[in-house]
């Protein structure tokens, strides 16, 4: 399998403050197609910096980064922006949907920019297809404030998919969601991953990381652990369990009131 991400001895030093901050201190990493990686670590461990580097929002101070075979460290700002638009999809903790805008128009947003503009009809078709993937095609005309948190995040995932990215980057995508909705969203990610999409996700919740195939732990700017997830959680199974527990609780509740 070809490597989507190939990082070699990457460093990032921020010089802006009085003391230079060495946020990432020599990380080497290969992420192949159809991997599903959780990036974990305490705050200050360098995971956000690494995520910014992966997302081409920042260039490494040292080391090389090949994204889908393209050497990122040699590109200028505009070329980086092009790469971001073409090869990457982003999902955020706060959903970041436009308020006055319907779900399907939100999904279309990334298509409005970039060099190759497509027709409105092609754009709509693609956006609808992405909403279908996340199971929200029946909510296409809803405004964000008419959607639940989980639904909003699914719209955001559809938006990340619309440019058919090589790599999906998610920064704490379940951070604003309750545990059941988190599992549902992780289910969407797992389904996408099964269909061949490579995903890297930052999280600090261990049970969320359990849905990924591989997890990395960073500490002080270096990877201290890089392992495959043992007994990985499957969202559909967990949701079924939850439903069963709820039904049981209801039955018990009904029984106790009857008695």
């Amino acid at each position: 399998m070809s490597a989507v991400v190939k990082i070699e001895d990457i460093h990032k030093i921020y010089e802006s403050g009085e003391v230079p901050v060495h946020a990432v201190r020599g990380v080497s990493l290969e992420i192949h197609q159809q991997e599903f990686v959780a990036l974990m670590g305490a705050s200050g461990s360098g995971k956000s910096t690494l995520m910014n580097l992966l997302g081409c929002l920042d260039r490494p101070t040292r080391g090389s980064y090949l994204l889908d075979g393209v050497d990122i460290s040699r590109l200028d700002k505009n070329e980086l922006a092009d790469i971001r638009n073409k090869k990457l999809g982003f999902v955020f903790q706060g959903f970041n949907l436009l308020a006055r805008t319907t779900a399907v128009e939100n999904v279309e947003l990334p298509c409005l920019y970039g060099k190759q503009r497509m027709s409105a009809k092609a754009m709509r078709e693609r956006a609808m297809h992405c909403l279908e993937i996340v199971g929200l095609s029946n909510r296409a005309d809803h405004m964000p404030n008419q959607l639940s948190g989980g639904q909003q995040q699914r719209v955001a995932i559809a938006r990340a998919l619309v440019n058919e990215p090589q790599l999906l980057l998610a920064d704490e995508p379940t951070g604003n969601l309750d545990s059941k909705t988190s599992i549902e969203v992780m289910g969407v990610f797992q389904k996408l991953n099964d269909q061949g999409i490579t995903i890297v996700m930052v999280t600090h919740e261990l049970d969320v990381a359990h849905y990924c195939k591989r997890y990395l732990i960073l500490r002080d700017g270096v990877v201290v652990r890089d392992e495959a997830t043992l007994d990985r959680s499957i969202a559909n199974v967990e949701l079924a369990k939850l439903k069963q527990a709820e039904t049981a609780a209801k039955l018990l509740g009904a029984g106790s009131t009857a008695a």
Partner: protein
Amino acid sequence: MTRKLNTVLFPALTGAVVLALWYGLHFFLSEDRRFLLPTPGAVLAALRDNAPFLARAAWNTSQGALLGFALAVFVSFTLALLLSLSPIVRASLYPYLMALQLTPLPILAPICVIWVGAGINSVALLTFAIAFFPLVVNTTQGLISTDRNLVELFRLYRASRWQQLFLLRVPSALPYFFTGLRIAATLAPIGAVVADMNAGSSAGDGGGLGFQAIIYSSQAKYPALYATAATTCLLGFVFNAVIVIVARYSLQNWHDSYERPDK
């Protein structure tokens, strides 16, 4: 249903209490001083008797107010776009915009008269001067208060500066803009009346409500003076109501401050 009834009943009750106090105060005054507070009935009668004059004056004032208001909306929006560009632009322009707001209308009025002559032009210009500041300040604040995450999202996906402005910043500035609009809509009719008093012209039946008030007070027609006040209030109400309706219509689909019935 009871809630709806209450929203009518209680304001009506307040009105009744005010009317009762008004009558009470009128008859409490000694007979030779009752002219100070004519009864509501006398005011209504004056309103009826002077209706043609008041209607014409209200129409003249509305024209001046509307013209000035429209000018203020247009100029302030354009200027707010400019001001939102950078803190340096704001720092260099704000003091002078403030100066315009801090100069009282009666002092600006004679200057306006020299410039564009007494009458509707001056009234419009002075209304512009008073309605302009809250609009420009609020709209600028809205344009620079866009959710940082969304700004970054637009950068992430390589939106141009124009796309960022018109797809993101302008729409999210709308609630601020309407807040400014409501303040301006309150100020505009008042400004127009004050302007009319100081820079109006009655030539060719062109006098407004401010002019009418001066005439009635010089003729000691106090009930008619009260009727003029009522007309001015009504004009302000209409201005505000239109803005509230427009704001509700433009914001109801997406802004949190307008609760949706289906939510």
